[in-house]
């Protein structure tokens, strides 16, 4: 077998492994006794009964065999005795990719349950890194990593879009609170807090930014947002690429040092928190002079110190809390979110199991960006769905943007009657703003906010068309609707709308084709597009097209508030001068 020709990539993987093995990983690869105690810790195993290929030890053995064949003596001398084997072909590497990326979210639940201290999640991350090193990875991982390397954040948000969004949120907050002092500062030197966020907030959820700003304002905090190094997420954690991890973390650290911030506060994002707070310094090989904390801890401190006041009767729906794997199992954040929830929500119901034993949201480890594995992800999500359902809660709170997406997807898939939110939203909703401000955050966008706009709704579901039409018309827009792609294109040419809301999955011409046709048509290409879909796994039908991406993207079901926030953002922030 050893005489077999080895592919260039396979050889590079072996060479790279020699460089990436550290004592912890070598120990984890050498020490497994195949006792099977970790098997049932994994949500993939529980959701796929009878299929041993999901067992953590089985998955680990796919890379362990290479380690044993090349680095461990018994495996070198009598490989078959310990199931050691090398890797020869690119096809074998592709198979390894499907395991490392498609069958494990690096949630670390099995690691915590191994009596031997085998940390499979860390081994799996190394495996991902080896594959990424030779260019073998899911498409989504390649795209996101490229964006983070080249543009500086993992969603490819341009600096001007980021600053525009902050500006927009800032103006809205000043209007709402009636105080120019509520404006969001950018690059202010010497502040106590530099607030960093997840680019998802800029793109899909700007309300979390204004909610955080409102809390900082109420606490009278000396704070700022940075113009660079604002993305505290880090795809290096998911791709196993330590170089990317170090480069991304360094951007945040260097910006904080430049503006002399005393503390970097990270918005609620599990992998961002872990990457920046717990791993970043190790990847970047640098020490920092400032503190770093999760905004959960910041908000709790404000409450403990009496810097903000809340009225928890504002949040009456039964809520439960989902521990993000990265926050909990990898960074020890267990009690702070619960204490905070207890203070801002009236009816908190613990999910079981919880804390370090909680199950993954199934969107972890970058799984949401790997659409090719969506079916097995959603299948494995049954475990989480059962856990959520058992709580009887109507709201699941999580301190992680990845979990927000993962949970939203599974809630829709398993038809649970729940919504997902974050602590920052609950705190902002419960916030009692005294003296300087009398009015709480507006629950609805002012009527006629969309006056003068024409919006084309393309969706094959009559209920969705009716809902979108009602919300948009109530806010002053002129709405035209189409039930399929061809009709939509014809109406777009006729009406020249300011915005098109576009479903992806439709009979006949699907949303992807409509979108590309619009982008390629000189008369239509400037029309803004917001994709609204109930099939996030079909995202690639839009994003993989060789045309500029849509201006917005929303998952169904979409709330009135989210719809309006995003529609307004697309129309206003993008610099459209037609109205207002």
């Amino acid at each position, binding site marked *: 077998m050893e005489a077999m020709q080895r592919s260039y990539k396979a050889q590079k993987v072996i060479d790279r492994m020699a460089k990436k093995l550290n004592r912890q990983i070598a120990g984890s690869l050498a020490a497994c*006794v195949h006792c099977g105690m970790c098997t049932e810790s994994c949500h993939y195993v529980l959701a796929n009964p009878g299929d041993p290929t999901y067992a953590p030890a089985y998955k680990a053995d796919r890379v362990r065999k290479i380690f044993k064949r090349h680095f461990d003596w*018994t495996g070198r001398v009598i490989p078959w005795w310990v199931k050691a084997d090398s890797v020869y072909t690119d096809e074998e590497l592709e198979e390894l990719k499907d395991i490392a990326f498609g069958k494990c979210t690096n949630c670390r639940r099995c*690691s915590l349950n191994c009596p031997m201290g085998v940390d499979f999640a860390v081994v799996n991350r190394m495996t991902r890194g080896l594959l990424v090193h030779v260019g073998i990875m899911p498409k989504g991982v390649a795209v996101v990593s490229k964006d983070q390397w080249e543009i500086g954040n993992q969603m490819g948000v341009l600096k001007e879009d980021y600053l525009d969004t902050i500006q927009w949120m800032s103006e809205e907050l000043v209007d709402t609170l009636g105080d120019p002092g509520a404006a969001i500062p950018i690059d202010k030197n010497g502040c106590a807090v530099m607030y960093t966020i997840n680019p998802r907030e800029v793109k899909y959820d700007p309300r979390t930014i204004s909610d955080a700003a409102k809390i900082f304002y109420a606490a009278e905090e000396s704070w700022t947002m940075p113009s660079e190094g604002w993305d505290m997420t880090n795809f290096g954690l998911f791709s196993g690429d330590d170089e990317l991890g170090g480069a991304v973390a360094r951007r945040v650290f260097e910006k904080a040092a430049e503006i002399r911030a005393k503390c970097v506060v990270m918005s609620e994002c599990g992998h961002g928190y872990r990457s920046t707070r717990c791993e970043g310094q190790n990847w970047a090989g*640098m020490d920092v002079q400032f503190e770093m904390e999760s905004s959960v801890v910041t908000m709790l401190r404000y409450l403990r110190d009496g810097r903000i006041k809340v009225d928890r009767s504002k949040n009456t729906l039964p809520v439960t809390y989902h521990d993000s794997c990265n926050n909990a199992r990898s960074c020890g*954040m*267990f009690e702070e979110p619960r204490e905070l929830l207890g203070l801002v929500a009236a009816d908190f119901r613990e999910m079981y199991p919880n804390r370090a034993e909680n199950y993954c949201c199934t969107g972890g480890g970058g799984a949401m960006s790997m659409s090719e594995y969506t079916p097995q992800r959603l299948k494995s999500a049954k475990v989480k769905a059962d856990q959520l359902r058992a709580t009887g809660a109507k709201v699941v709170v999580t301190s992680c943007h990845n979990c927000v997406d993962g949970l939203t997807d599974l809630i829709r898939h398993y038809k649970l009657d729940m919504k997902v939110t974050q602590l920052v939203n609950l705190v902002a909703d419960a916030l009692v703003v005294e003296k300087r401000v009398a009015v709480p955050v507006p629950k609805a966008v002012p009527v006629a906010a969309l006056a003068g706009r024409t919006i084309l709704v393309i969706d094959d579901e009559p209920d969705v068309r009716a809902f979108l039409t009602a919300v948009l018309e109530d806010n002053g827009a002129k709405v035209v609707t189409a039930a399929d792609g061809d009709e939509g294109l014809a109406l777009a040419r006729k009406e020249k709308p300011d915005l098109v809301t576009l479903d992806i999955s439709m009979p006949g011409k699907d949303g992807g084709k409509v979108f590309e046709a619009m982008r390629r048509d000189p008369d239509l290409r400037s029309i803004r597009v917001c994709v609204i879909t109930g099939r996030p796994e079909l995202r690639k039908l839009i994003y993989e097209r060789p045309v500029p991406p849509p201006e917005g993207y929303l998952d169904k079901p979409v709330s009135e508030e989210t719809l309006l926030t995003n529609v307004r953002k697309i129309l206003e922030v993008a610099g459209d001068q037609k109205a207002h």
Partner: protein
Amino acid sequence: MSGLLHFAEHRLQEAALIFMALVYTKRILWLLKFPAGKERQAPTGSRDTTKRKGILYSWAIVGMPWAMESTRTRFFTYVQFVVFHVGVTAAIALSFIIPYLPGLIENNDTLVRVFQVVIWAACAVGCMRIVRRIVDPYMRAISSPDDYFSLVLLTVWFAFAALSAPNRPDQGEGPLLAYFILTAFFLIYVPFSKISHYLYYPFTRFYFGRSMGHRGVFPIPKSVKPAFREAAAPVQAEATATTSSH
């Protein structure tokens, strides 16, 4: 006692022990040549935990079946683990007592019985584990020839250890010879097999515990079982007065 048995009990064991010690030393040096990862960041999680506490907890976790879900929910498997490993300790102890401290078990039927009960129990667990490894598709999928062989080797070794416990060569040297030859083989084979896991245990658990202690994950917090699951009614949260700032 025949010359062969004397040789098996003494020279053979000593040679095998020296060989094992040398190979183990080499093994540890091999592991240590890999660089140890470093955690530069300030600690996270509860202020009550430290790297040191994490390491101690991590080493002790195998004696705390309540700590990990895997041992808590599969208590019978955990009991098997304990019995098996106590059996290993007893069988090893016997391999030193018979040649070097025979007076300890001579005319001490109770002690002999204790050894026999413990080792036979371990032998029974060994049989159960062999069956489980063959029958359970999950176990089969992760098992290598070494896994089967090591388990069979130990189980057979237990049987001969139990039979040898009375140390009565006058009643037949067969079991004693088999026991000591197997012990020597075992000592030579162990460093190359999964049985050497106890050599790695202190290292893997040290590094995992150090990291988890530094990050406030160890000691693992209790996964609180909500009362409403039994009572089917929602529980109100208490504002827990806790821990740390990150």
